[in-house]
């Protein structure tokens, strides 16, 4: 099947041919001189007389010109004979995020669908697997899945297979849970110009925490303890222990257990060994995923890890790090012992994120049907030509067509000169 590298050149060439014909038949020339003995009395002014000639003269010249322009237009358009007529390339997106119950199930599903041209494994980020064998090395991660990242990777990979097929099919192997759909997902999905085949695997509902409790230190006059004690125990999804001093061996042993969250929130700068900031200052607020605390708070430490809360300027104020089967949260927010800010509702809202399960709140429920139908889409598969980069394609006919056009132009020049000499 013949296709074109730059189809617009065909239209431009056709317009040029029509213009050539028009210019050929609408010729401007001097009228034929007629004898007038008194011509010397005619005012000697530069007057352009225009005449229109519709005579079929110099047809050979016209044919040569049109042939030259057509050859050049075809050469620029670049005819190509596609080898993969009717072929469908396949891009497979394999979910390996924490929401997947078993990556093995996903692998088996992919294998059952046959060979893939491009294999992409994704969680919060997407990575293209170089060989089909790489699929065996794909393991489940604890990261949140992101369908946005998956579709963006599919868009990027489409260009590499577009030249080998007419259509491209995207196969999404994922549980498609709520947490994998973010605000950008619909827009990024809409950028894919075709339907998507959605192959759902089971979500990891077994890892969803079902309840927990909060262990607070037995100290008096601690504003953080006082504030957290006001959090309703029913809101907790994990077992949480708050440590206001240095972490003890018993604390770390406790935190290694699955589903447990060890919150290390120093009461003073002397009970934490975190690296100090280059400049110790104060800032007007700190925010977590569940709320913001507006108060004048000192900043002493620079903590590293998955940010749970951030200062007003975006610097992490509380981070989470994996610790055994559980996790430890370092909260670098020093609260004035005399402050009553912790007794207010905004503090409790802020603290809910700190008391949540490891990895944040999980939403492994299936996305709603509307979202799923939008993900799948309707209509035909994506056309491969939409992903072809014109500049990267070339036609083996182009040099010959351009050469032919140049030859025809030379012939036209020679014929024109011959006609002038004969005249």
């Amino acid at each position, binding site marked *: 099947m013949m296709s074109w590298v730059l189809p617009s050149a065909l239209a431009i060439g056709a317009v040029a041919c029509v213009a050539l014909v028009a210019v050929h038949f609408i010729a401007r020339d*001097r*009228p*034929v*001189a*007629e*004898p*007038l*003995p*008194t*011509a*010397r*009395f*005619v*005012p*000697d*002014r530069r*007057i352009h*007389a225009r*005449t229109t000639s519709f005579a079929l003269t110099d047809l050979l010249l016209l044919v040569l010109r049109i042939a030259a322009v057509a050859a050049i237009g075809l050469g620029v358009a670049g005819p190509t004979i596609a080898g993969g007529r009717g072929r469908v390339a396949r891009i497979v997106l394999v979910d390996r995020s924490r929401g997947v119950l078993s990556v093995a199930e996903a692998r088996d599903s992919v294998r059952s669908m046959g060979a893939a041209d491009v294999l992409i494994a994704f969680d919060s980020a997407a990575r293209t697997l170089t060989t089909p064998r790489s699929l065996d090395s794909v393991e489940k991660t604890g990261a949140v899945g992101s369908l946005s990242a998956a579709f963006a990777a599919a868009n990027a990979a489409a260009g590499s297979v577009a030249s080998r097929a007419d259509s491209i099919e995207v196969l999404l192997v994922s549980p498609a849970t709520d947490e994998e759909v973010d605000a950008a997902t619909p827009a990024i999905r809409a950028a894919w110009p075709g339907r998507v085949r959605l192959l759902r695997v089971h979500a990891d509902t077994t890892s969803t925490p079902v309840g927990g409790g909060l262990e607070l230190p037995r100290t008096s006059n601690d504003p953080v303890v006082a504030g957290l004690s006001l959090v309703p125990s029913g809101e907790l999804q994990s077992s949480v222990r708050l440590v206001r001093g240095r972490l003890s061996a018993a604390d770390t042993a406790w935190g290694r257990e699955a589903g447990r969250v060890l919150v290390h929130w120093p009461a003073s700068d002397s009970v934490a060994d975190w690296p100090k900031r280059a400049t110790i200052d104060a800032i007007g607020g700190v925010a977590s995923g569940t709320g913001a605390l507006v108060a004048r708070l000192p900043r002493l430490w620079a903590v590293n890890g998955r940010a749970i809360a951030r200062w007003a300027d975006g610097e992490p104020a509380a981070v989470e790090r994996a610790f055994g089967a559980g996790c430890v949260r370092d909260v670098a927010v020093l609260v004035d012992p005399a402050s009553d800010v912790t007794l207010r509702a905004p503090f409790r809202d802020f603290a809910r994120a700190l008391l949540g399960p490891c990895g944040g709140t999980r939403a492994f429920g299936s996305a709603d049907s509307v979202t799923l139908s939008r993900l799948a889409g309707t209509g035909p598969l994506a056309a491969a030509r939409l992903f072809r980069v014109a500049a990267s394609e070339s036609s083996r006919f182009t040099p010959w067509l351009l050469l032919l056009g140049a030859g025809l132009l030379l012939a036209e020049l020679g014929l024109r000169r011959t006609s002038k000499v004969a005249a």
Partner: protein
Amino acid sequence: MSEAASYGALLDAVRGVHWPARRAVSSLLPGAHHSTLRGTSAEFTEYRLYRQGDDPRRVDWRLLARSDRAYIRLANDRAVLPTTIVLDTSASMAFPVATRDKWRLAQELTIGLAAVAHADGDPVGVALHDARGKAMNLPPRTRRDVVAEIARVVLADQPGGSEPLAPLLRGLRSARLVVLSDLLGDEEDLLRAVRAHIVSGGEAHVAHVIAREELDPPRRTLLAADPEQGFVQRMLVESSRREYEERFAWWRDDVARRWRAAGASYTEVVTDEPAPRAVRRVAASGER
């Protein structure tokens, strides 16, 4: 159609037309025009007292017997006026291209004026360039078939080239010169030669032949080319037409004024005018 048949009607039309000299002629041969000489013709004019040196044979002996004084009889002589018609055969006379009206009218004028001059008893000849551009001079003759000879020469010629007329005039001995031309060639030199001829006692007539199409060119865009000067090509459009007509009219007026100032008889002849009428106007232009 024979040559005679082609101009026979013209000769019939100009029969009876006279072409008097514009002033007394100094020719010795007797003719129809007043002569500057006073001699012994039968037409008595006056008496004059005999002076020493007068021919005694011209003394009126009867008057001498009656009055005892010697008088001689004086009488005005009549003389012929040799006429040469100078015909312009340049390419500009072959206009319009399709009808050649200017050339046709010039031919008829030549034959007609020759016939009129011959009818007055004047020797008549013609000077022109032949089809090859060579000067040809048919000297003035009074013999009976001179008009036919002139007609044969003129009708056999074809206009073309751009040979000047002035050199033709220099070798002519005729007292009366008639120039039939459109004056679009060497008009200045021609006028200078005619002026010299008039100063030396001759008389000159010019019939300025103009085509109707020159006065009123076709009303369309026209790339006008001078047939004698091919490099002169100018675009005549409606907007420049008025200026063309004004310039051409001014030039014709100027030519007429200068030729008349030189002492020549000037007649403008347009191609749509019948040839016999034009002949009459040219012949009458010499009357005073």
